[in-house]
């Protein structure tokens, strides 16, 4: 297989939520997005690291429960593993659920690639009363096992030491044998594989995978090119099925399951007894049919108000020097091109600094707190009931919640949904979720000028809208949703360092992508104003802006920028109207501000969202999304205008 360079490939693989990305980050620096929500890394991350003078090409794969996955995101993991033979596989496992985690380890051992186990979250296992005899486990598996606590950076040096030693060394021990009858059937198929058969990893693994797979096209091709092998495969499956009265893939899976449990029992002692763990008691309350929802509401309100209480004074504090600076510029630079450009630059930098950051940073931090603690999955459980009302299920909660951060990763994240139906509905609804940038603007403008209750009301209205739209969209789909299967990870004490890292990680994408666009947009607007060109754009859009929405004509030009990123329209509103932050309410009425916010919030999804929708779901879905958003924005803002006018 062709490789980019000669650096050894080290693949990180593990079941969802085993702390793999945290471990990867600890080694690679700030690269993968981690969380306490199953299946957060949906795309793999590459990174080069220097370990004691040796450069390794490390690859973080999305979490996968098994090598024969049913989940679309998990398939990404595997193409990588099967296309190129890695020099080392680091299997990260959650020590607190060793029994289940070992099922994937057993599969990896079948590949016969060099494997090292990182026995992660060993502290959590300890808390649960599970004591693991690492030497014994190493002996039973026949591969090195290194205990780690990724969130505290513990065991990482040892892991890397062992990794370096194991590079490129194939497994010497033979695979652990299964039940005699199953083993015989595997050998029966294995021995019939022709010389030129496209073997993956080794003949045994290939035979097992053939029995397990459920790919219709594979069966068809096999029947065409090698009918006698297909007959053997069918017979082997049939024999397994009649011996165990279960589908063949279940027989294989059960073999691994029992073996994994046996290994777990032999290597660990559990001191638990009947004591209910603290976690279960917390879960009984947090997921309680009544208190759970009270807590969910409380968390939501707290989330909202904490961000506002931190952001509001900061915004005021930062806006003051900015408006004095603008005054100073206006007095000293005259009215030439230089003034317009400098003013644009200042508005762009100032808008990001004073309007976006004071709310955005606390929002990201709180969001990562909720994720890391494990609350989001629990919110998914609680919300499932309501999601059913709108024709979806609780698993869609996870992309939705990510949508509050940014719509773009949320749409990528819809890959975790098992059916295309759910993916389309969820992707169409996501652009209606107020992303962090829009939330920031709602807080910075609506809450700042009109009071926090208006902003909260707007938010609640937004939720209702998503529910109503969801109900309507699902009417177009006949098949029902397949239903929720969502792992609830254990509650964790989040590490401050981890949350900070994640906040910075997401902040970096704002600073690198959105802020430059904002600054450039503001300068362009300054230039257009200097040329008086903004008037033409305003004139073209005036039927919509003035007649339809009853807004000042000057706001038309901001809509063009709003297509790049919605929040730009709102931040640039001040510049377009030519007023300072303090004087906004003198040129625009309360009603107009609300109408404008409604329009901007729901109007065309931002450019990156449209591009991604097109890429992920196809042109049709992207177009429907644009039409749906624009239609809803026009209708709603018009209604808002009528209602507010009374």
């Amino acid at each position, binding site marked *: 297989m062709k490789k980019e360079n000669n650096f050894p490939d080290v693949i990180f693989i593990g079941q969802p939520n085993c702390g793999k990305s945290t471990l990867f980050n600890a080694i690679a620096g700030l690269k993968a997005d981690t969380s306490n929500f199953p299946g957060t890394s949906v795309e793999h991350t590459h990174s080069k690291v220097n370990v004691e003078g040796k450069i390794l090409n490390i690859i973080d794969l999305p979490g996968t429960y098994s090598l024969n996955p049913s989940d679309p995101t998990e398939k990404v993991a595997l193409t990588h593993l099967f296309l190129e033979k890695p020099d080392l596989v680091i299997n990260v496992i959650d020590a607190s659920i060793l029994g289940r985690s070992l099922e994937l380890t057993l599969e990896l051992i079948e590949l016969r690639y060099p494997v090292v186990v990182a026995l992660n979250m060993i502290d959590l296992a300890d808390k649960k009363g599970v004591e693991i005899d690492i030497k014994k486990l190493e002996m039973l598996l026949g591969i090195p096992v290194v205990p780690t606590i990724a969130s505290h950076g513990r065991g990482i040096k040892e892991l890397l030491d062992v990794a370096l030693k194991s590079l490129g060394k194939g497994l010497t021990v033979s695979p652990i044998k299964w039940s005699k009858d199953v083993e015989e059937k595997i050998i029966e198929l294995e021995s019939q594989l022709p010389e030129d058969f496209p073997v993956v990893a080794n003949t045994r693994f290939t035979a097992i995978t053939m029995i397990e797979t459920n790919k219709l096209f594979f069966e068809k091709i096999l029947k065409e090119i090698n009918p006698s092998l297909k007959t053997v495969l069918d017979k082997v499956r049939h024999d397994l099925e009649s011996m165990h009265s279960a589908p063949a893939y279940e027989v294989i899976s059960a073999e691994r399951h029992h073996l994994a449990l046996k290994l777990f029992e032999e290597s660990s002692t559990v001191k638990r007894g009947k004591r209910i763990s603290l976690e279960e008691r917390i879960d009984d309350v947090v997921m309680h049919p009544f208190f759970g929802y009270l807590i969910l509401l409380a968390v939501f309100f707290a989330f909202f108000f904490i961000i506002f209480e931190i952001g509001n004074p900061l915004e005021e504090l930062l806006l003051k020097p900015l408006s004095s600076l603008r005054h100073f510029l206006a007095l000293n630079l005259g009215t030439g091109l230089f003034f317009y450009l400098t003013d644009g630059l200042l508005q762009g930098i100032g808008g990001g600094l004073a309007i976006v950051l004071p709310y955005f940073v606390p929002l990201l931090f709180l969001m990562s707190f909720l994720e890391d603690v494990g609350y989001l999955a629990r919110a998914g459980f609680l919300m499932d*009931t309501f999601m059913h009302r709108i024709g979806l299920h609780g698993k869609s909660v996870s992309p939705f919640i990510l949508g509050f951060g940014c719509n773009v990763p949320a749409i990528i994240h819809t890959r975790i949904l098992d059916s295309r139906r759910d993916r389309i509905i969820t992707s169409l609804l996501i652009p209606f979720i107020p992303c962090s940038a829009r939330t920031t603007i709602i807080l910075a403008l609506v809450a700042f000028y009109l009071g926090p209750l208006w902003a909260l009301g707007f938010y609640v209205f937004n939720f209702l809208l998503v529910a109503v739209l969801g109900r309507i969209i699902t009417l177009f789909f006949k098949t029902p949703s397949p239903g929720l299967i969502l792992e609830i990870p254990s509650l964790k004490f989040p590490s401050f360092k981890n949350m900070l890292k994640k906040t910075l990680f997401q902040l970096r994408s704002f600073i690198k992508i959105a802020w430059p666009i904002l600054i450039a947009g503001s300068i362009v607007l300054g230039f257009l104003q200097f040329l008086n060109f903004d008037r033409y754009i305003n004139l073209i859009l005036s039927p919509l802006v003035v007649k339809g929405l009853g807004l000042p004509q000057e706001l038309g030009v901001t809509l063009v920028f709003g297509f790049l990123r919605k929040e730009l329209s709102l931040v640039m509103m001040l510049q377009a109207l030519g007023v300072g932050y303090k004087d906004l309410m003198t040129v625009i009425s309360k009603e107009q501000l609300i109408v404008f916010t409604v329009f901007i919030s729901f109007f065309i999804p931002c450019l990156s969202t449209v591009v991604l929708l097109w890429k992920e779901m196809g042109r049709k879905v992207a177009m429907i999304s644009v039409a749906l958003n624009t239609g809803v924005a026009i209708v709603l803002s018009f209604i808002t205008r009528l209602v507010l006018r009374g």
Partner: protein
Amino acid sequence: MKDGDRLGKISLSQAPPDTPLRIVDVFGFHGVRRRLLALGFHKGDIIELDLRGIFHGPILVKNLTADTSVALGRGIARKIMVEIIEERE
């Protein structure tokens, strides 16, 4: 395996909470079955129904064998057949 209903064989959606249950059968499409297997839910495993969501919401199931928790929609819970494990066993 007998097809007839054995005494105590019920669907998980009707099972009593906080009682050890043994999975005896999983119906449904291969996709759902495989997904459950991947999450560590196998025939013979001992599970416990921890919580029930309101308004026919999901249920929270704890797998005592693998020590994991999974939220399952009611539709899926209906496809999992379990038997109650007697205290004396």
